[in-house]
């Protein structure tokens, strides 16, 4: 029942090492796997080598939306909460951003307004969960439907997405954000994702919010008794997730040069997958922003890699299986660490 010493046994040390670093081994394994696979016959990859520069740049460009969301989503799950509406929030932001751009709003105000929309969407989730006390899964399932509904309403009848037409043209800067090479041949969208992740790493390790998120997820009663306003912590995390979903929407619509009201569909599952893969405990308390970022890279490499190997209609099944594997290993690793 109780251990009489706090000396870590070698088994416990190994488990903790595994928990902290396994994701990097997985990353290396996936890279090795993909670079040794014979991908010659597929057009998407440059002949012969996965590690070819253009492939890497390609993958990182497509990954920007997921990468920008992974960190915030991690912090939310560390606090023991979840947001199933991120995909819809992303779609709605993409539509709003494209509408602003097509109607002549310049880059910076359009960008800022869209992020603000994300903040509001996050605040709606926070309100439902914290104030109205609705179970997070139910609350964000409701907003998943609501946000998507609004996104679909905003797009005219008979049109599938906001895009350049006869009268209105999407401006050039719209594409540049997700495609133009800014630094090391990578676009701004990718660097924003990196910057957001770095900021959240600092918040997690040095910020009050990061610590309070861990306390709220680890032992809510203890957090409350220590005078922590757990409601405010959770609300703030939902707002940050909303803002990051908006950044993801901007990145996605910029890359696709249209505002697609379905572009974020399924993103919530991918986000959960990535965070679990990164070793965040579903029950809260445990988890690291950086590891989720790496998890996101792995998933994107696999997805893009799979595009070339596996027919598209197998992908959801493969993602589901990966989710199962991540959840199971996550359960094993975090249980072992806890029971002393």
């Amino acid at each position, binding site marked *: *029942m*109780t*251990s*009489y*010493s*706090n000396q*870590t046994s070698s088994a*416990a040390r190994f488990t903790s090492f595994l928990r902290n670093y396994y994701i990097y081994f997985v990353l290396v394994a996936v890279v090795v796997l993909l670079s040794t696979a014979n991908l010659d016959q597929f057009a998407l990859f440059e002949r012969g080598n996965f590690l070819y520069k253009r492939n890497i740049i390609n993958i990182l460009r497509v990954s920007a939306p997921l990468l920008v969301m992974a960190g915030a989503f991690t912090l939310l799950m560390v606090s023991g909460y979840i947001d199933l509406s991120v995909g819809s929030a992303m779609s709605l932001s993409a539509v709003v951003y494209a509408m602003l751009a097509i109607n002549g709003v310049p880059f910076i105000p359009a960008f800022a307004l869209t992020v603000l929309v994300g903040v509001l969407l996050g605040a709606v989730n926070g309100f439902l969960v914290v104030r109205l006390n609705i179970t997070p899964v139910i609350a964000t399932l409701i907003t998943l439907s609501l946000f998507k509904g609004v996104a679909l309403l905003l797009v005219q009848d008979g049109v599938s997405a906001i895009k350049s037409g006869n009268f209105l043209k999407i401006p050039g800067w719209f594409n540049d954000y997700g495609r133009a090479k800014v630094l090391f041949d990578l676009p701004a969208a990718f660097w924003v994702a990196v910057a957001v992740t770095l900021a959240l790493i*600092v*918040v997690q390790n*040095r*910020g*009050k*919010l990061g*610590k309070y998120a*861990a*306390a709220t*997820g*680890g*032992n809510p*009663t*203890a*957090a409350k*008794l*220590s*005078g*922590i306003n757990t409601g405010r912590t959770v609300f703030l995390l939902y707002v940050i997730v909303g803002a990051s979903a908006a950044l993801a929407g901007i990145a996605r619509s910029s890359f696709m040069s249209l505002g697609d009201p379905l572009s974020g569909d399924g993103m919530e599952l991918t986000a959960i997958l990535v965070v679990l893969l990164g070793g965040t405990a579903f029950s809260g*308390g*445990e988890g690291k922003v950086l590891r989720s970022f790496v998890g996101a890279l792995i998933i994107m490499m696999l997805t893009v890699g799979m595009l070339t190997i596996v027919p598209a209609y197998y992908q959801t099944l493969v993602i589901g299986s990966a989710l199962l594997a991540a959840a199971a290993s996550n359960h094993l690793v975090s249980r072992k*660490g*806890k029971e*002393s």
Partner: protein
Amino acid sequence: MTGPQTHTVLSVSGLTKDYPGVRAVDDVSFAIEGGTVHCLVGENGAGKSTLVKMLTGALDPTSGSMSVNGNEYTPNSPQDARKGGVATLFQELHVVDELTVLENLTLGMERSWFGFLVKSELEERAVKTLAAIEPSIDPSARVSRLSVAQKQIIEIARAASSGANIIIMDEPTAALSEREVERLFGVIRRLRENDVTVIYISHKLDEIFELGDNVTVLRDGKHIVTKPLADVDGRSELIEMMIGRTVFQSYSPRGTVGNKVVLKAQGLTTSLLKDVSFDIKEGEIVGFYGLVGAGKTEIARALYGADSFEGAVDFKGKPVGRTPTAAIASGIALVPEERRTQGLFTNLTIRENIPVMNLPRVSRGGVFKAADVQDAAHQYVEQLSIATSSIEKHTEKLSGGNQQKVVFAKCLFSNAELLLLDEPTRGVDVGAKSEIYDIIKDLADQGNAVAVFSSELEEILGICDRVFLMFDGHLQEEIPNGPDVDISHILNVVTGGQESVAQ
């Protein structure tokens, strides 16, 4: 005992708490001196926990006042209490496993600059406090690596470093091993040296004599005495003050106890129980008496197959299966401790609740017959005189006593021949209590065996033919009930009195 000058740090006067029908704390006044370990003792139901809840802000007193360091003290929540300098060590642990020791020590009190944590003297103070009371704990270790006792010490260190000068500890040794208890006592003594006042609540009288400076005895919600432990003449005087002279003895021997042993338990061992063996005879009511945490519920749950255990249980000569389903099938039923969460489907009606333990009895071909279910409900409502307007009433709307009768009906419907009753009259009013006692006696008179697990001595001595005394997972002693039963001996045994004479 400590300093030359004594000063009062906490005092209550005329403190009263009424619940509907009960006065849990009745006009209690006493004072606690600074830098002492002040023990609070009393039987179950004496009002200790209600008093503590008022001190920690979890309950508002009905009348009376409290003061801390001479100022009026009216906490609304544990946080409020802590601001007033009163911290509580709850029975369940309030530390965050995922954080480090230091992060836990400063939790909720961090200094920050634009949301980012900055180093402050707070951390130094926390580390110093921890080092002073328990130097073996590394402040950078993750709390999930620590033992229960160490986590408790973290909580104490947090309370002390947050400036609390009064720490309330409610049964802090309940989950600790002997060695850990010694360590905790060391911590408490060091706190006292640093002029921190500890209010210590425990059923274990040895701990109180070992640790305490002063003691306050409560009985039936009333304040009996507050005095230095040095002036208390041993366990017997303390026990006498706790029980008074008025233990109600209404047992009359019943003639139906048979000679046939129906249940034989041998060497029951779980994480709490240690090699417990006993038997129960046909038509007999046996009682298991002990304090909270002595292992009563664990025995009931083991016999019923609800928890796994080592050892052997034979019922009517055959080993009992180790699941509740098997126990029910062989004729054992349990009335659990927590009626609302474990005994009843509160969102269902009386009619729907009664047959759940034995649906085949009212079913044919997998479909149950509504008429039989109704008949059964009517029969038991009448037999147990359940006060209700209809059998269609949802059980959550019934009073505690009537709810308990529905649980009994459920068990009787399963055709049980051995009933395990865990705290059968908890939260039940006096009238229903005696009705339930009558039901229990009737059941035994009909030849059923009954085991009552209770922390109320009056209940045990009122209805049981034989009593098993429990302490700390051990079955200490077996005594026959009768008019000349020695109550102070019983209390001595269940509070861990080692000088008890073995029978």
